[in-house]
């Protein structure tokens, strides 16, 4: 590690309020960073391509600081980080698809987002006419009595599209291989040259269930890049929306996981609670998912006393009704029989992949961006982060249960401490190129937004990294040795985003 570059490590209170620039590194230093990642020195936050360059975002958990390394002069390709640190593989393959870069030394150079159906290849690099689809080589499997079950992209449920290739011996899954990219919409390129307003619109439509969290992270990045002072009331209202979104998703997930174990009553019960959260959000903020309510500079809608009372009543109702459902879950042996010890994710893997959200926290990774890379309003609120080490479906349900309770507490705290004042500040260009980082704890995990703006304040590059990038590969590991019939249950307990990953 002698070549480890001196990066511009920045603590959260600094990168949250001021621009963050990437530190230029040499190829040898780039490789050293890959080794440091593999050695567990840092956690990988993101990896993305730029014109003639590639960037790596890192998190130093001990120092509670982040840094962005930038390897410039990348014309044909760059040394693979994925060859040294597996969690980078899919991010690299995506960057290679979009920019046409070779991954030097990589074991897996198969395309990831590019299925061969676009008119052009390398849409963000030097676009060339596309040669058309080529067969996708799934990983080879060898052994006795193995059979393969291809599933998707169109699934049986009302869910997003993706392909799962199961190799099974009898009922037991010996390997799952995912192929994603079906809902790739080209958001990275749509962002280029867009105004901040349009960028916020696209960010809020990257993963529908996390529309608040994405808009929040995008606004953070823009405000940091342009050093905008956001009114305190707006920051509290953002926290309020983010917690309502977390509540709605966790309530929906808890029921949906149980439903996949054929315990339909839980879905009916938590589905009703979720609907009531969405109705209050719709009534108070004018949209059930609170889409387009967070914009760079603040929020577009204020909360009046009637709205605050509605939310208070909602939290009272949840506090009265949720505990009985938790008790029901905990006292139903036939349900626990399906969730306990199934889909176990090894804590070592969760750490290595820096898995965020309930996936990481159910497998011992004690990280929550709201606490560890603090941002407003959470820097002045009390938050307990639940962590377990059992790593099975049951653990992922319990993390959600505890987080529902925490969200109720946070919402009450926010309503009690909501400062008066304006909810939106003007946002003006900096007069020169600026970049900034946004990092928000969505319900699924930490969402990273890297935003580079030009002198006029239009978007030069925006890369959004969904938590699912580091969770999807772990699902492949978690299902190994379980039976195919447990996959829907296990998949739901991860509830990774397709659209957020495919972009």
């Amino acid at each position, binding site marked *: 590690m002698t070549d480890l570059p001196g990066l511009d490590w920045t603590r959260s209170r600094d990168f949250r309020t001021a621009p963050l620039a990437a530190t230029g590194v040499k190829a040898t230093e780039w490789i050293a960073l890959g080794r440091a990642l593999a050695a567990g020195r840092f956690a990988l936050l993101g990896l993305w391509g730029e014109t003639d360059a590639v960037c790596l975002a890192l998190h130093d958990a001990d120092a509670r600081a982040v840094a962005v390394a930038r390897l410039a002069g990348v014309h044909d390709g760059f040394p693979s980080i994925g060859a040294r640190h597996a969690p980078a593989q899919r991010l690299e393959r995506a960057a290679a698809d979009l920019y046409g870069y070779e991954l030097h030394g990589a074991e897996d150079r198969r395309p990831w987002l590019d299925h061969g159906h676009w008119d052009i290849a390398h849409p963000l690099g030097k676009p060339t006419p596309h040669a058309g689809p080529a067969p996708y080589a799934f990983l080879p499997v060898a052994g006795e009595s193995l059979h393969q079950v291809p599933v998707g992209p169109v699934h*049986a*449920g009302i869910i997003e599209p993706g392909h799962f290739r199961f190799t099974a011996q009898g009922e037991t899954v010996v390997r799952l291989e995912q192929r994603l990219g*079906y809902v790739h919409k080209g958001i990275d390129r749509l962002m280029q040259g867009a105004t901040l307003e349009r960028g916020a619109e696209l960010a809020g439509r990257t993963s*529908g269930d996390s529309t608040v969290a994405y808009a929040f992270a995008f606004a953070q990045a823009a405000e940091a890049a342009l050093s905008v002072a956001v009114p305190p009331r707006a920051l509290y209202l953002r926290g309020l929306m983010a917690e309502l979104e977390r509540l709605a998703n966790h309530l929906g997930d808890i029921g949906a996981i149980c439903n996949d174990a054929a315990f339909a009553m839980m879905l009916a019960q938590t589905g*009703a609670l*979720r609907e009531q959260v*969405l109705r209050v959000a719709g009534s108070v903020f004018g949209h059930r*998912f609170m889409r387009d309510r967070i914009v760079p500079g603040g929020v577009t809608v204020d909360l009046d006393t009637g709205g605050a009372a509605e939310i208070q009543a909602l939290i009272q109702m949840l506090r009265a009704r949720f505990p*009985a459902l938790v008790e029901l879950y905990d006292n*139903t042996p036939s349900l626990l029989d399906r969730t306990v010890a199934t889909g176990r994710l090894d804590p070592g893997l969760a750490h290595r992949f820096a898995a965020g959200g309930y996936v990481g926290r159910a497998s011992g990774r004690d990280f929550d961006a709201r606490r560890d890379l603090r941002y407003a309003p959470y820097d002045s609120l009390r938050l307990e982060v639940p962590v377990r080490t059992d790593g099975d479906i049951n653990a992922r349900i319990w993390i959600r249960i505890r987080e529902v309770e925490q969200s109720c507490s946070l919402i009450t705290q926010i309503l009690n401490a909501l400062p008066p004042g304006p909810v939106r500040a003007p946002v003006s260009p900096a007069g020169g190129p600026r970049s900034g980082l946004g990092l928000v704890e969505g319900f699924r995990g930490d969402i990273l937004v890297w935003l580079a703006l030009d002198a006029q304040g239009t978007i030069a590059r925006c890369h959004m990294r969904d938590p699912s990038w580091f969770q999807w590969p772990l699902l492949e590991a978690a299902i190994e040795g379980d039976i195919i019939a447990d996959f829907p249950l296990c998949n739901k307990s991860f509830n990774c985003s397709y659209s957020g990953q495919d972009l």
Partner: protein
Amino acid sequence: MLRFLLDGLIRAPMTEPAPEPGQAARDELGAALARAVRTRLGRSLSIRAVDAGSCNGCELEIHALSNPFYDLERFGLHFVASPRHADVLLVTGPVTRNMAEALRRTFDATPAPKWVIAVGECAKDGGCFAGSYAIAGGVAAVLPVDLHIPGCPPAPLALLDGLLALVERQGAGSGPG
């Protein structure tokens, strides 16, 4: 467990008591829809949802149709797991180039008579993703569309409303797509 079952028996159904203005419209809508479906297809309409590139927002609201507040199945409408069992394809999202083929095959696997409903702003013309190298267009760029339900995403009631509009139009004489 027994407590919840007992509760369900004793307590008034969730679909009834909500006093907000939408409730009356919903019941009226549901009853009219049930009549139309019955004329055309007996007592039921099987719906297959296909995500052709959506952000997943529309799926969440389609899901909500099955919660106790909307309880879609009371009208004889239900979601099926295979296009081979479906009367209606509910297609969401701008159609991505990576999903266009799968969407076509899903349509081909659906037996006639069949209808296609495009759900959400993106499904109309690609929405905010229109013009991207990765987008084929709205649903109509790939399949014959019978009805579009606007919204980003459309609320559950708007979805129910759309299903009614479709079935009534078909019932009035125009042939299936």
